[in-house]
């Protein structure tokens, strides 16, 4: 396969990131063709290696699904940046790459003597992206955080959920993945400019600010608050008298449908039963008795049908609706199958596993998994060899715990 045609072929990236956000950023670069060298701490490596789920539920640093997914197509190197030799090797690598992404706690690169001012002297074209919880400045710079804490502080958590319960969350680790995408977007834009100007920039990305600027309600709610003085409050998605109910129990789970006045006739046609032709059901409905009468017909009708069957019926009739899927539904889903979304990847230790594949497709260039996530230090010999180190040098570095 011709890999030189990939969008980021020839782009060299040094990856000092760990856990979720940073690796998500460099995964996107690697999966679309960049040569990403992931640098891990000798011994334990990326902490994500120790976070489940693990393949076969066997906890092992080469079997973490989180790590395996976020590090496809990268080459792996171990290096102790605190040692003199480690630093020297890092500077050699940094002088020959286009992009450096790091996600240490704010200020760490400076204390390692690897701040942007130092690195750009070696490599003026270098684009450096720093991903941190709260950014490289400000009163919370050194605060500790978890995904939940960042979500609570940055995002629309206060307005999420039910008014009679605590503020609610989103899927586990989702926000950190979003921050990684944002970092990739910022990095590529700056890289595009640096290619032309010959001069890189430093990007200071705060996960809290990615969430505060989210188009998923927060950014919008902040503007609305400025405009009208009201806060977005916790409120379930749809609780109206208009039939049909937004969420419905069907034969094999839950099914959502949104009809309204505009699509009422299409809805009636799609149901195709006599009882639904009762004109009093047509929105807007102001009388709860009518809603109840509708539901007496509707519930037994909907409960005998599967979410897939219902979705197909109403979508083909032009009514927006969707099944509430689980990952099991998605793994067998016709749409995802026809688009070859899932990919099988072989890994020397974890074996062949099924991964989520391309987040987007490009018609001229294939999405290619060239290699699985690296095992800890897997490419040490190859990469150090390229820098001119001999096998004897490597043995010495390893003995001194530099790699």
């Amino acid at each position: 396969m011709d890999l030189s045609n990939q969008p980021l072929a020839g782009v060299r990236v040094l990856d000092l990131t760990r856990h979720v956000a940073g690796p998500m950023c460099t995964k996107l670069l690697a999966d679309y063709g960049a040569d990403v060298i992931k640098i891990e701490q000798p011994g334990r490596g990326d902490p994500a290696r120790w976070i489940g789920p693990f393949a076969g539920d066997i906890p092992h640093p080469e079997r973490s699904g989180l790590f395996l997914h976020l590090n496809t197509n990268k080459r792996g190197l171990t290096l102790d940046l605190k040692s003199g030799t480690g630093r020297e090797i890092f500077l050699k690598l940094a002088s020959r790459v286009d992009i450096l992404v790091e996600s240490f706690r704010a200020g760490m690169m400076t204390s390692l003597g690897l701040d942007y001012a130092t690195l750009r002297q070696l490599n003026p074209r270098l684009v450096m992206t720093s991903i941190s919880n709260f950014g490289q400045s400000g009163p919370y710079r050194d605060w500790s955080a978890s995904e939940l804490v960042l979500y609570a502080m940055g995002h629309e958590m206060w307005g999420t959920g039910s008014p009679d319960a605590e503020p609610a969350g989103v899927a586990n680790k989702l926000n950190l993945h979003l921050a990684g995408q944002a970092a990739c977007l910022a990095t590529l834009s700056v890289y595009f400019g640096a290619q032309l100007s010959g001069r890189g920039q430093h990007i200071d990305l705060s996960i809290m600010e990615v969430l505060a600027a989210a188009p998923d309600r927060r950014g919008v709610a902040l503007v609305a608050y400025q405009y009208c003085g009201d806060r977005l409050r916790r409120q379930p998605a749809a609780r109206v008298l208009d039939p049909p109910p937004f969420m419905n129990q069907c034969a094999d789970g839950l099914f959502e449908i949104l009809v309204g006045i505009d699509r009422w006739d299409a809805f009636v046609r799609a149901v195709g039963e006599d009882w639904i032709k009762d004109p009093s059901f047509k929105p807007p409905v102001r009388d709860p008795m009518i809603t109840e009468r509708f539901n007496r017909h509707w519930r037994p009708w909907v409960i005998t049908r599967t979410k897939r069957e219902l979705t197909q019926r109403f979508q083909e009739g032009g009514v927006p609706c969707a099944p509430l899927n689980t990952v099991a539904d998605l793994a067998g889903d016709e749409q995802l199958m026809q688009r070859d979304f899932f990919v099988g990847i072989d890994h020397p230790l974890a074996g062949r596993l099924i991964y989520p594949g391309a987040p987007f497709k490009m018609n001229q260039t294939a999405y290619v998994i060239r290699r699985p996530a690296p095992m800890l230090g897997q490419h040490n010999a190859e990469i150090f060899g390229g820098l001119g180190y001999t096998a004897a040098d490597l043995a010495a570095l390893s003995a001194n715990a530099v790699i």
Partner: protein
Amino acid sequence: MKRLPLQGIRILDLGVVAAIPYSTMVLGDMGAEVIRVETTQVFPHLTRGVLARPTRELAKQWITTSGGYPNDRDPGERPWNRYPFFNYMARNKLGMTVDLRKPSGREVFARLVRISDAIIENNTPSSLERMGITYEWLCGIRPDIIFVRLSSFGQTGPYRDYRAFGLQTESFCGHDLLGRYRDRDPSHNSWAVPSDHAGGMNAAIGCLMALIRRRRTGRGELVDVSMVESFLNDIGHIVMDYTMNGRVQESLGNRDRDAVQGVYRCKGDDRWVAITIATDEHWRGFIQAAGNPLWCNDRRFGTVCDRIRNQDELDPLIERWTLQYEHRAAAAILQHHGVPAGPVMDDADAYEDPHLKARGFFVPIEQADCGEHLYPGPAWKLSETPIQMRHPPVRLGEHNEYIYKQLLGYSDQEYEELEREGHIGTDYAAHIP
């Protein structure tokens, strides 16, 4: 002034609702010339409002993001230029109007395509095609064009033309069953559209990748972004728990498998603090912060595993402490002792937050139909070319003169003709409610 990273790149924005308008805002922030191509003849429901001309009474019934017009929910003379949802994502763009349903409109559009680098859209796939706007048609006008198309399910496959907003996409891709309360059914969820965020960013990323490749190869590209497939990459570990182990993960609520975690009530009305106690160090920090209460020595809370196993018993004890403090104070005390904690900030708190203030996150923007307000700014800072607010939230047809006459070279007479045909304007057609 230094050259902005994407300066010199022209992008046509045919985006609706959230995902693509957000995507092109970011590209505009980074220096691209983004032109919103809109029409005065059809109202884009949920893009420039729920209705073009709602009454103030209606606006008052709607949630803030739909009805929160400036000046106590006054829709004003041109509500479409005052709609908070749209205006958040409308900065750093130019705006023009043209009716693409008419052949004369497509001619205008073709002239625009000739001088543009990329076109980005997120309509139901067949809707542009019905007007003859396809990748092949665009390539005929400009062979190296980049066409970025985002939709819920992608441009191929049996569900290609299914109608879905963010809400439907969320339920389809499993989010409704993952992001919710542990002990309540998903009808207690409120609307949330992280798949718009995920998909919108991937559309911009795909556009940049295509631009980078075009610079190297001289060739354009069609980018097909599926919101579902974008989202599934953002929960890869949950997907892989199923593909590896056959496990269908259920919602954890605000908890975590590897830590004691939750939101706890604080002093005041509907005030909460988020706390994560993952390690023994965090636990010791919490004990110190709470002033060494006796219950901390309970055997049920001895180790990390004990605490996670017995969180149901631990939670009310933690909350007994948090209830004594205002949410910001509780977080500050815990942080002082090294415990990850933060106030759950409502929209008002965010504007008062000392950190966001110190970082200059909010930026003042003056727009003719809204006056001056603070807006959430960019999510990152650049060392050499700080992101500027070059254009306030774009008003319908605001740059028609510049785009038709300067960019496309139409004469005054042709301009008037196009105006008469209904292409050019700053108000939605009178028949639109």
